[in-house]
């Protein structure tokens, strides 16, 4: 019964997974552009974000139509409401990837990241990519244990972010103000990006349980 409705609902879910795939790849590519001073990669990320924005607007329209026409209730209703939130979060993740790519483009051909921080930024970039991809998996599988894991990954990025600031403020910084600002901003972008992924995790927890509980309470032992 109501096959076309259920298909449309599934379509929204598929759209979110596609979005998460796109932004995950954007984060990865932006990190590469950053560390390798690759202008082409940076441009590619910036252009690809248009695709993400288009998908975002389309998903919103579809969700609103479903609300207007199909009177979803229970899990279906939570699915659509959280889809509206998650699409917004994923779109922001995409935007942060663009910010990162723009920093790389701005400083080209010079590398933005000083040598001693390369490892940290690389780790942050990998963690961020991992977290973005994991968000997509959580949306697809609605696996609460995985959603809890995501929070742990976010803690990792927060720690890295903290260590970044420690390096900036330990008194041995000798790369100049511009570099310091760049690094601070980059750290911020990665940290914010991960926070939005955590929002996705919260949304999925709400979707599955119907309560605003902490995803960590569903972490597997």
């Amino acid at each position: 019964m109501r096959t076309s409705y259920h298909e449309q609902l599934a379509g929204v879910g598929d759209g979110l997974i596609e979005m998460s795939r796109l932004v995950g790849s954007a984060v990865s590519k932006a990190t590469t552009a950053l560390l390798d001073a690759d202008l082409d990669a940076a441009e590619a990320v910036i252009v690809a974000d248009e695709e993400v924005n288009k998908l975002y607007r389309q998903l919103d329209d579809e969700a609103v139509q479903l609300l207007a026409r199909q009177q979803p209730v229970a899990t279906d209703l939570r699915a659509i409401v959280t889809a509206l939130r998650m699409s917004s979060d994923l779109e922001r993740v995409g935007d942060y990837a663009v910010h990162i790519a723009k920093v790389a483009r701005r400083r080209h051909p010079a590398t933005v990241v000083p040598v001693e921080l390369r490892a940290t930024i690389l780790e942050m970039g990998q963690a961020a990519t991992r977290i973005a991809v994991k968000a997509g998996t959580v949306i697809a599988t609605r696996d609460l244990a995985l959603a809890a894991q995501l929070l742990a990954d976010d803690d990792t990025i927060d720690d890295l972010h903290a260590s970044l600031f420690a390096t900036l403020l330990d008194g041995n910084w000798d790369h100049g103000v511009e570099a310091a600002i760049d690094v601070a901003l980059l750290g911020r972008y990665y940290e914010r990006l991960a926070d939005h992924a955590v929002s996705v995790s919260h949304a999925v927890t709400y979707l599955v349980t119907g309560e605003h509980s902490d995803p960590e309470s569903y972490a597997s032992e």
Partner: protein
Amino acid sequence: MSKRIVAEDVNAFYGSFRAIAGVSLTIEPNTVTALIGPSGCGKSTFLRTINRLHEVIPGARVEGKVMLDSEDLYGAGVDAVAVRRTIGMVFQRPNPFPTMSIYDNVAAGLRLNGIKNSKVLDEAVERSLRGANLWNEVKERLAKPGAGLSGGQQQRLCIARAIAVEPQVLLMDEPCSALDPISTLAIEDLMTDLKQRYTIVIVTHNMQQAARVSDRTGFFSLEATGEPGRLIEIDTTEKIFSNPSEKRTEDYITGRFG
């Protein structure tokens, strides 16, 4: 095979009382168009002008044109009975002929058209019952009376009866209002199938049903009691339910009036 309906300035009267005024709209083939509006606003009356059933009531008459493709159904020399043979109707309360079997009910329209060959009738009855999603439930008891079925099944029987004669257009006057929610959903799913072969117009006082089932929605209303009903707005269902053009439409569908 299904046709486009164009209404031009349709007015319908009960004696001297004008029930609907100046209704003009187009209904594209193979679509579901829902007509919504508060009670007494003339949507059922308009529906019955399409198959010329309105004029059966003593003292009732219709002014204006209703075009089926290029033919004016109210043109000079057009036989109302012939019009009703090409337009099927399903009513609010399921009304299978109580003294007839399921088979005879579905075959009634065909027999009216003079078809007597039992093989032809058998095929048509099976085709119609399949089309109405009722075949599997009744194929073992076609000779049993039609009145022995549940409400939802009876309504599907009436749908089978209507489509047996392969009409161009199928009119449905609040077909689910006497049914339980599951039967209602079953018939809504059926409409999605049926629109591939027929043009469907459905009157419903259930807005959510109009939102779920139709491609286009028309909103009827009246200014005050005693005034004739009018078509306020007709547009794609998406537009009507997310951003209607008329304030009256928005007030109605959000429940601020009516």
